[in-house]
């Protein structure tokens, strides 16, 4: 006999929708935002229960670009896993490179040459600027401003050209090696980077006049998506999301790794707690990154760019290591366990976007649907990093 109930006909959505709302309710609408929604920057799906224009409940659904990077680590040798790191967070690939390489170095007790550390800082900060620039353009695109992304991409192009010369890639970098970097930087790179710093400063000022002071933009971000400190702590948010709520926690400053302790820079934080606070943090971070790059170029020592004795096919001793670096989105952690063989025993990738997104259902309760887009954008999500 044909069963014509709602369940059997699959009319009430797929597994996740049914799990989200087992029984139909009056006056409330279940809305699927994504996975092909432009404001979700990739393939994130959010199930929303809305009452009129207001959101009652929200639940992100993940896994649309899940690649099981952690399993891949267990079947590949240490050095074979390097290209994977550029693909976890494609916007700040070098920070992931660093987290993994740094974890293995700590496990093996490798001492990285000073010059290599400086090169790492310079390239990582360049990458951070390009990541923030893309976020800036894309966020404004979400809010309905089309032009800024053009300016952002024009500037980003210069950074990508600079990094391409020495890393060989434009987006998914695989530049750091155990004990150093794969290629030395030359005078042309230094000259280009210095020019970039000179060029970007007035551009950032122009961005401020152009967007930050703009009344339409301000109305879309001020007082929207307020995240309290307590929520941040319980969900483990890091990065600009945390600093936008007034907590100046930055791994580079609080627990300096590499040569960050030798460089002077500030950690911008705003106690606004809203989307505007997070916006301001990122805009100021770009200026701080420029400051770091200029100092590093001045202090750049001569020497090896990679440890001469560095093993190309490492076999770290058995042990555990947890190493974190500050990425563009927050604290990137690599938890590595080795049993002494050439393959990692277990590798856990702690991605900042994962924790940052997990507080979204809490924040979005009771806001307008249009504001949810603004909040989602202000969290600066990179979906491949969440899904891994």
């Amino acid at each position: 006999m044909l069963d014509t109930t709602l369940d059997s006909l699959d009319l009430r959505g797929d597994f996740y929708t049914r799990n989200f709302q087992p029984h139909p309710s009056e006056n409330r609408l279940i809305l699927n935002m994504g996975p092909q929604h432009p404001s979700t920057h990739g393939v994130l799906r959010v199930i929303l229960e809305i009452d009129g224009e207001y959101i009652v409940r929200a639940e992100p659904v993940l896994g649309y670009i899940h690649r099981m990077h952690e399993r891949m680590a267990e079947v590949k040798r240490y050095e074979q896993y390097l290209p994977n790191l550029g693909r976890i967070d494609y916007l700040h690939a070098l920070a992931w490179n660093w987290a993994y390489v740094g974890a293995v170095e700590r496990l093996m007790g490798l001492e990285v040459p000073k010059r290599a550390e400086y090169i790492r800082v310079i390239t990582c900060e360049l990458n951070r600027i390009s990541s923030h620039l893309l976020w800036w353009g894309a966020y404004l695109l979400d809010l309905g401003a089309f032009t800024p992304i053009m300016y952002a991409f024009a500037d980003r192009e210069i950074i990508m050209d600079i990094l391409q010369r020495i890393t060989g890639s434009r987006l998914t970098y695989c530049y750091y090696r155990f004990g150093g970097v794969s290629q030395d930087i030359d005078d042309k790179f230094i000259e280009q980077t210095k020019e970039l710093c000179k060029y970007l400063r007035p551009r950032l000022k122009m961005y401020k006049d152009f967007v930050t002071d703009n009344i339409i933009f301000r109305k879309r971000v001020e007082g929207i998506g307020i995240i309290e400190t307590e929520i941040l702590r319980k969900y483990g948010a890091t990065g600009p999301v945390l600093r936008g709520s007034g907590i100046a926690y930055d791994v580079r400053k609080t627990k300096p790794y590499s040569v960050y302790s030798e460089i002077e820079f500030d950690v911008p934080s705003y106690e606004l707690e809203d989307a505007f606070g997070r916006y301001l943090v990122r805009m100021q971070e770009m200026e701080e990154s420029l400051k770091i790059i200029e100092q590093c170029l001045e202090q750049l020592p001569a020497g090896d760019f990679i440890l001469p004795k560095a093993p190309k096919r490492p076999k770290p001793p058995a042990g555990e290591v947890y190493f974190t670096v500050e990425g563009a989105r927050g604290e990137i952690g690599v938890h590595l366990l080795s049993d002494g063989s050439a393959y990692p025993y277990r590798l856990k990738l702690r991605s900042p976007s994962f924790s940052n997104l997990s507080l979204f259902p809490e924040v979005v309760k009771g806001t307008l649907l249009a504001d949810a887009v603004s909040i989602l954008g202000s969290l600066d999500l990179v979906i491949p990093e969440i899904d891994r």
Partner: protein
Amino acid sequence: MTKEGLGHVLEVKPGFCALLATGKVGYKKQLFILPDDLLNVVKHLDECGYALENITALEIEEGFLLVYHFNQWNNGEKLALKVLLTDGVKEIDSISDVYPGALWHERECFDFFGIVFKNHSNLIPLLLDPKENIHPLLKAKNKRQPLAAIMPESEKIEQYIKIEELGK
């Protein structure tokens, strides 16, 4: 199952945490606790102002090892809680009542290892296909290593602390 490699870890008494040597691992503190004490300890950490950073699991010869990473924002000092599930147990209390951020991390562990978290409000697959019941990070029997082989630090217990005195 060999219990020799476990050393002192199994000697942890209820109500106590074993403070392990940290070495080069990168934590300020490393604690080994019994599964039944987990909620108690986590509540204490919450009162001390720790932020939840990460939850991860791994399969070893003795069973499953769960590692909870906590962090303090003012000084960046990390704390790792380690809980061992032995004798085929695949269940542990969920800490999502104290730290709601654990909801997703626990779902991920459920995905990858099939560990069931009791009192979890929404324990469905997070990243994997809900139709397939596969746990990709489970290891083949001959690939599993004993705890002492991958965490030499777990052998050296510095002292036992009462859970109530943890904040000090």
